[in-house]
């Protein structure tokens, strides 16, 4: 099953490699990993999407907790949560495709943030399925480049992950 694991970790050099090294050393799977400092600059927040049986996910959370730099670990997918991913897509936008591309971007509440005579860069935010749906909706041959941040997530309501 797919799980979204959120980690608060000391914002130290090498902290990321401790986490990624753990996953590769123990053969755990990473679908995506995002990391950035929090409002407290001494802490980073990491979101990892992983797929595995309940036993494996339990081991992953235990092994993450065992890392000395890790302050807290929570499996967001255990309860109500929100997940978002940001994607930038550079597409060819010429002739009749130019108008069509704008229309599809609008439908998906995307924004065009760079315009040239022949291309757009479209910014799109949503869950993974929505971003996938957008890519399916446009003509694949027009896609020049895509970049996605990977999932970040947060618990709903009173579920708060902080020190």
């Amino acid at each position, binding site marked *: 099953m797919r799980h979204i694991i959120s980690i608060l970790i000391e914002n130290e*050099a*090498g902290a990321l*490699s*401790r986490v990624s090294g753990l996953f590769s050393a123990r053969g755990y799977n990473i679908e995506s990993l995002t990391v950035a400092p929090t409002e407290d600059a001494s802490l980073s927040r990491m979101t990892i999407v992983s797929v595995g049986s309940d036993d494996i996910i339990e*081991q992953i959370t*235990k092994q993450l907790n065992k890392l*000395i*730099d890790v*302050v807290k670990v929570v499996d967001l997918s255990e309860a109500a949560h929100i997940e978002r991913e940001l994607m930038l897509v550079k597409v060819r936008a010429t002739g009749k495709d130019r108008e069509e591309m704008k229309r599809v971007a609008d439908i998906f509440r995307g924004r065009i943030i760079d315009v040239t005579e022949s291309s757009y860069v479209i910014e799109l935010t949503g869950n993974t399925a929505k971003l996938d749906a957008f890519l399916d909706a446009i003509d694949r041959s027009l896609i020049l480049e895509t970049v996605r941040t990977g999932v970040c997530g947060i618990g709903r309501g009173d579920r708060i992950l902080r020190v």
Partner: protein
Amino acid sequence: MQLTGAEIVIRCLQEEKVEHVFGYPGGSVLFIYDELFKQDQIKHVLVRHEQGAVHAADAYSRSSNKIGVCMVTSGPGVTNAVTGIATAHMDSIPLVVITGQVPTAYIGQDAFQEADTVGITRPCVKHNFLVKSIDELAVTIKKAFFLASSGRPGPVLVDIPKDITTQKCDFQYPKQIAMRSYSPVVKGHAGQIKKALQILLDARRPIMYTGGGVILSEAAEKLTRLTHALGFPITQTLMGLGGFPATDKQFLGMLGMHGTYEANMAMQHADVVLAIGARFDDRVIGNPAHFGEISRKIIHIDIDPSSISKRVKVDVPIVGNVPDVIDEMLKQLSALDAKPEGKALAAWWKEIDGWRSRQCLKYRQGKEVIAPQFVVEKLYEVTGGDAFITSDVGQHQMFAAQFYKFNKPRRWINSGGLGTMGFGLPAAMGVRFANPKATVACVTGEGSIQMCIQELSTCKQFRLPIKIINLNNGYLGMVRQWQEMFHGNRYAESYVDALPDFVKLAEAYGHVGMRIDKPADVEPALREAFIKHKNDLVFLDFIIDPKANVFPMVAAGKGLSEMILSEDL
């Protein structure tokens, strides 16, 4: 007062009451060695290879419950130390490893003797640090000692760039340290303990299965009390030997791949397993699917939550420090004033006695060729069962574990997890430094001993009267055994041709060498070594039966009760 980084390193070690540092100097640690030279509180033990330094520090800790400390230079100093660090990591041994690094400005430039120490060692340490500023040096060393010895212990490495050892700052050693990201659980959950006791009291075929965690947490005495209070059979892992007296009638012997018939049968057929400081690894329970074919309740006490339900599903997990948990168990047990179900237990013991009567460790000692088991039995007799025994890896290690009866903790020193050949001799050095009057023997083989044989020179320098029991069969015995049993007798590269004359080799290093090839000479030779040559290092080269195999054996991937027993039975 302002001190240099090098002075700070030494002051920190002094504050931690470190008495011995095992190490090897080199370019990037020269300033630290200079400060070491100027003081006499800390004794430095110069080894002949960095691997030896780490093994010695490791066994120093294993045999004393102090933190082992070693110091090596950057680059090859570190890479040579990695095997030792990984060995300590697998067996959860508290070490502080101080490594030199090239100057900060050179890092990343492929400088002379530069290696990414933090990167290379990351997977085989509990934690590691690269010191980036002189201001954080003292607190980092404090953290290293704290982390190494608390929770589930392990090696912690501190990498110090050379320029930091010459910079100055005010020195203040923190008395205590708190880390928001690290707070190991000590006390076990009282409710879980209550639940566990209920299951234990209702058990009809219980077994206690304990490991290295009992030794590391100094819980042997409490474990013995609990075992006597419950009256249950107890078995131990290779790492757990000595946690309960081996001569006690409740002890079934070691379990696992080369465990006794009775221990493995009892483990497989138990209805309740009380696991303490052990981790159900592949060499212990064999195939987990086969183990799972019989349903049983498992209670697991461990300080590391990630050890619980890793290989087998646990019914009652108790996370905590073993002696604290046992204390609580004993307290609750006496408050309950209840005894385990006597009739069922008596029937269970009767069944176990049936398994015991197979005498699975029986071997034949003829008149011509020395059986390796015989050597270990005689070693046990001659040393009164009271020696510190270090070991390498292979058949000799298993014979030592099976035939030397350890009644006390911290007497059996071996690389259980990583299985590192070359561990035994440097380990014996570490044991002797931690226990300056103790009898120390290294049970080894002609394959293993050659992996760190250069330390015979260190032994000479420090006059360490270690007795090396070399079980010489001219083969990498365990490899040969597997090839005989599972690879159609094709002995690929397991015969060690061109062996040295170990007697002359020992003499060349300034020690005493003896070669023994007759069964009748075994005991006299041991007596001569341990009594007449009490103060010498003696290399006893026992020429043993090249065909001897270790039994019982659970083949890799097989179930615990699918043992292969000795042909002699």
